[in-house]
């Protein structure tokens, strides 16, 4: 059997650093230039999770209002959702709620209560006095949403990025694997010879 593919969706307001985080994680690169993502983009990365080699497919979505609704097709079958905000922007933190809702509505996972999210507070490299969201506030929110794992990151200085995505892949794999063993075996069908079924192969 081929390698497991984990589908990860990254959501958050425009400019919080979703693309940069992904780039840092996958390509170990950071660029100061801001280039808005149009629609969606994805990167893949091979990772070891619990001694298993898996392929992570990271979907970077556009944070701009005009692209916000990408539709059900993109979100379908996601194994983990990463919510990103900018610790220096209170607004980007406050919209996490609606990003989470948007995801749950669009992806409609079978068990929304236990669907794995990971929250990243990005841009902690910026000077302290610009910070608008405290760690405590963020952690309280994460706890209230069912103990979502929380990381404070800097895509620019590669702080905590690796660790955060390790948790992402681990939780994604767990979500992917659970319950999958339970596959029911359909009953053989009853053959009703008397009911007419004709296809024209009158041989």
């Amino acid at each position: 059997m081929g390698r497991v593919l984990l589908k990860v969706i990254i959501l958050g307001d425009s400019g919080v650093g979703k693309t940069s985080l992904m780039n840092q994680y996958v390509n170990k690169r950071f660029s100061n230039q801001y280039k808005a993502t149009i629609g969606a983009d994805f990167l893949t990365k091979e990772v070891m999770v619990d001694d298993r080699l898996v392929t992570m497919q990271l979907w970077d979505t556009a944070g701009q209002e005009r692209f916000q609704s990408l539709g059900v097709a993109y979100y379908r079958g996601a194994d983990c959702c990463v919510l990103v905000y900018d610790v220096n922007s209170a607004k980007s933190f406050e919209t996490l709620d609606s990003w989470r809702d948007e995801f749950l509505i669009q992806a409609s996972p079978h068990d929304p209560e236990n669907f794995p999210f990971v929250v990243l507070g990005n841009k902690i490299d910026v000077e302290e006095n610009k910070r608008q969201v405290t760690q405590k506030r963020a952690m309280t929110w994460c706890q209230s949403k069912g103990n979502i794992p929380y990381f404070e990151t800097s895509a620019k200085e590669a702080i905590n990025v690796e660790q955060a995505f390790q948790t992402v892949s681990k939780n994604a794999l767990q979500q992917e694997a659970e319950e999958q063993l339970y596959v029911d075996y359909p009953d053989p069908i009853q053959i009703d010879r008397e009911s007419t079924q004709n296809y024209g192969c009158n041989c």
Partner: protein
Amino acid sequence: MTSPCSQTTPSSPAHYLVIPPVLQSPPSLSNLKDHRFSTGNLSVTTPGTPGLESSASSVMNLDLNDGILVHEVDPELDTTHSEDTTAVGQIDDVADEGSRKNLRDHLRRTLSVQREKSDAKRKNDEFLEISFVSPDTTLEGYRPREYFVLTDAGKPVFTSRPDGQDVENLSSIMGIVQALLSVFLDDGDKLRCINAGRLRITFLLRSPLYYVCASSWGEPESVTRSHLEYLHLQILSIVTASQLRRIFERRTNFDLRRLLDGSEPFLFSLLGRMELDLAMATSSLNCLQLDQSLRARVAEALVPTSKMKDTLYIILVARGQVITLVRPKKHSIHPADIHILVNTVYSPSIVNSPASASWIPVCLPKFNPAGFVNAYITFLHRPDTDYKFYQRTTLENDESADITGASHVAENSHGATSRHTTRLIEDSGIGLVCISGGSEFETVRTWCDIVTQKLNDDGSLDALARAVDSGKTRYFASQLGIPGLRHFVYKSRPHVQITLPAFEEPYDTLDSKRRIVTLYQIVHDAIHAKSGQTGNLKLQYIRTEKEIVMGWITQPFELYVVLSPRLPKAAVINAANAVTRWVKKEEGQLFLRDAPVF
């Protein structure tokens, strides 16, 4: 968003098939009756059109004076059920959310730029398209078609690429396909294919699965589409449609490979089979050519006893072809189900199994996609080692001898192992297949043993084996003694069966077979207007530098003939008539008729 560097034609199916200008039918022969068949994939002939049988006698109603074939085609004969024909290209601009529209527009812009470019280029490309049929274009040969199956979440299910190759690239392909299809789906639209120069990427959406084929063979879109449809049916035969639906209702991120693990050989052998199988291409059955009385005698022995309550079909096969098929009075079998079943029976894991019989659950998707029936499969006759040796030598000396076009796993370019063994057993192995809805394995086994004994005792099994081994179950076009005739495919429409000679010189190499099969497919597609052509032609005549290919559809039959390119038109008509006369004469042994029902 990674944009496809290609030209998409999501909403105008008429673009798909470019019939090169040189291929027009000469006026004196053409009869452009505008019978509109619905376009689609697997065309399913509905039975019971009254008068079909009786009109078979008017086959020869060919007016040679002006060369026009006068048969009317009953448009109801070919009804297709393909959801693809609906809602293709419907773009609901009004209902769109602005954001989605934006994304869509962006994609459209990217694509239309590409389209303009390729339109400009098209002038040159036309030469390419034409030269597909001309001899020197096969320079690059026939690159294996690539197939991908993924879930609608973008998770890989199957790929025709050899194991472990390009894993990273593969997950990108799956992602791109899912993203592309999603953009259109979110607008209530479906992407059918992308044309990029010679390469065509065909998509088939059978939620929760997406099917993709990339091919540069120059075949009509309907051909790759039907390949994907068969691939879907084969997957359903393993997991059933209802189980598939239930699983994905519960978990949209399900990795289907867990369920399909170990069944890749079925899919690979199907892909190999589809490449040259003209019975699959014409949605019909190609039974084994056999002496009529022997076939009847064997069939009588296969009628189940009243104790076998849940028996659905009993099928005897050899060389991957059906010898006879016994069925309940009120059930007929869909050709696609036979093909899926035969492919399953001849998959290496079954045909090479050291066990005396296999008992496997299989879903016959056209019969009932919701559940399994049980298939008892046993090979009654296997060549002994001496025979194998003999077979090996003949095969190596005479490549063409093993091909009937309809029945082989042999030339599978997808890396099926132990190909030689498969081919050998397939060549003379005679398989008995009993499809039962019940699970009373012992009853079925006992009955099959009795049947085998009976066939052994009365010598029919021996007679069958001799016929198969001595090559009497196939014929060559040259045997017909028709000047200029190289090959043909004749489909009896009331029987939903085809007959065709084995390929011989100059169609004895793999590439030349691929080439001629593709030409047949082009003509078949045009005659049935399967690619959105405005009207279906009753007669299509193609002349390449190497041959003349003519397709002709009438009420009782379809005929496709390949002739020497220098033949004058009158001789072409004569040859076509001579073939139909010959088939009529030999009908008894070419087609499966009057098989017993119970």
